[in-house]
């Protein structure tokens, strides 16, 4: 009996040892990110490199929000504008389209859902030339709105697909009650179905927000002036300029990642089943 107990403990230790090894390898770049953001500039480019800062320095986190020395606030406003506009519209269209595909019987339904799925597999890189020419022709070159339009199209198929699968889980009988109460068909969607699938709708919002927040391709095609740059292309444009200070870049990276990590964690907690986990494209 004791022998098997020991064996069990050994097995447990061996298991945790491997888990910790995996976690350390995966986390290593994040540890570096954090460590640089807390170092003085001289130490970030010193050799041999250190992991734990010799002198702790949190000044970078204040510096990046100081508009006189670092353009982060400006970038953040642009990123927020693009990500919010994208996700609000994607959620709205997702609700409408998802409801149609989940509840209504109509001709061409399977064709339409197959079309959405095909679009889901495409990425914008295939269409950058015509999209650039088209949106420039209608005066949207160097504008955040061009990025928003492209991000909506990028996220729409998944938004509809995700919303649809949430709506599928809501019993149709609940809609009957609304009908008896005299709600319109739109009223049924927004007063009954939507409130019941709030957790699903939040995860669609988070998905679209994340895709737009992280986007580099469309922002770099459509935005030229530093005034309109989003965080990713703005920070990247600082490479090889006097503003390029490793500590600030890493502090900015952490601040940029934080809302996404929090939102994603929150939405994961809301989803009970993992069935839509694969809905995130990247």
């Amino acid at each position, binding site marked *: 009996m004791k022998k098997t107990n020991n064996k069990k403990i050994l097995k447990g230790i061996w298991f945790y040892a491997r888990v910790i090894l*995996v976690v350390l390898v*995966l986390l290593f770049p994040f540890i570096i990110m954090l460590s640089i953001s807390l170092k003085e500039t001289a130490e970030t480019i010193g*050799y041999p490199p250190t992991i734990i800062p010799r002198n702790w320095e949190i000044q970078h986190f204040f510096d990046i929000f100081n508009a006189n020395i670092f353009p982060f606030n400006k970038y953040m406003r642009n990123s927020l504008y693009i990500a919010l506009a994208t996700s609000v519209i994607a959620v709205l269209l997702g609700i409408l389209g998802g409801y*149609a595909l989940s509840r209504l019987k*109509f001709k061409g339904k399977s064709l339409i859902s197959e079309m959405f799925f095909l679009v889901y597999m495409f990425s914008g890189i295939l269409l950058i030339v015509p999209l650039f020419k088209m949106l420039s022709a209608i005066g949207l070159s160097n504008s955040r709105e061009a990025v928003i339009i492209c991000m909506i199209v990028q996220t729409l198929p998944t938004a509809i697909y995700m919303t649809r699968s949430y709506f599928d889980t809501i019993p149709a009988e609940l809609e009957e009650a609304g009908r008896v109460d005299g709600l319109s*068909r739109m009223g049924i969607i927004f007063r009954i179905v939507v409130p019941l699938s709030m957790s699903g709708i939040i995860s669609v919002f988070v998905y679209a927000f994340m895709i737009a927040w992280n986007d580099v*391709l469309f922002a770099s095609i459509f935005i030229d002036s530093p005034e309109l740059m989003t965080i*990713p292309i703005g920070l990247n444009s600082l490479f090889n300029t006097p503003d390029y200070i490793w500590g600030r870049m890493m502090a900015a990276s952490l601040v*940029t*990642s934080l809302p996404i990590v929090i939102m994603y964690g929150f939405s994961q907690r809301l989803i009970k089943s993992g069935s839509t986990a694969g809905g995130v494209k990247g």
Partner: protein
Amino acid sequence: MSIKKKKLGGSDTKFAMFLLSPSILLLVMLIGYPLIYNIVISCQDVPLNPNLPSEFIGLQNYIEVFKDPEFYKSVFVTLSFTVVVTGISTVLGLILSVFLNRPFFGKKLVNSIIILSYVVPAVCLIFTWRYMFNNIYGIMNYFVIDVLGITDKAPLWFDQPASAFILVSIFAIWKFFPYAYLSFNAILQSMDNSLYEAADIDGATSWEKFKVITYPAIKPTLVTVVSLRTIWVFYIYTEVYLLTKQVNVLGVYLYDMAFATHDFGKAAAISIVLFVFIFALIMLIRKKVLKVEED
């Protein structure tokens, strides 16, 4: 609202079209139309000045692309990159999901750590990698020279094609394997443990259990994960472009042709070729994946 109800109340088809029309309109305008417009541009000589008219030149752009040795190099690099990244990230995700498929203390935390690289903006991860692999003061120089003593001169890391290819591959694997992990995890969690218990009683090895119980259960997901990842890695752009100028995958080749060389006609021709590749791939796997998606 009430007017709409009267108008649309009768038929499901009308209401469905009403609900779907904004989405369909957007996709037709911004996916459908550009797809065709792309073909037109690919047969044109597009001048730098947008006010000048483009000139129809037939298949000239395609001929030039197919004559360009850079193009074949790019196809080769892209194919190798796709196979390496898709293969390894899928296997890694699968191994980890099987390995961690048991209740243990801290599982939620470990899961959150695993998906970090997947959700954090690529740019932030890229800055860190460029710092770690800096030719002068990067911490990886310290590891290979002073700790492990593999070389006495720092490698060029991202500034040399072979090492850049390896590093970009590792980066992409690290960034994308959580997708496979999450997908497999969802299946494994919903599986019935009694099958494994019965196998244990029969004295089955881990490999036998995987082959007979796990593999059949995850096979549909495996097909989906591999298919989608293949397509997405095939036209990867952001991660490669921001990490190095030494790995010229098709996405980068296309982007540079459009926005560095400013040859829109040729860039459009490249994207048509890329499109044909991807479309063939989609057609090949469409039936299988769609079937899985519907389950």
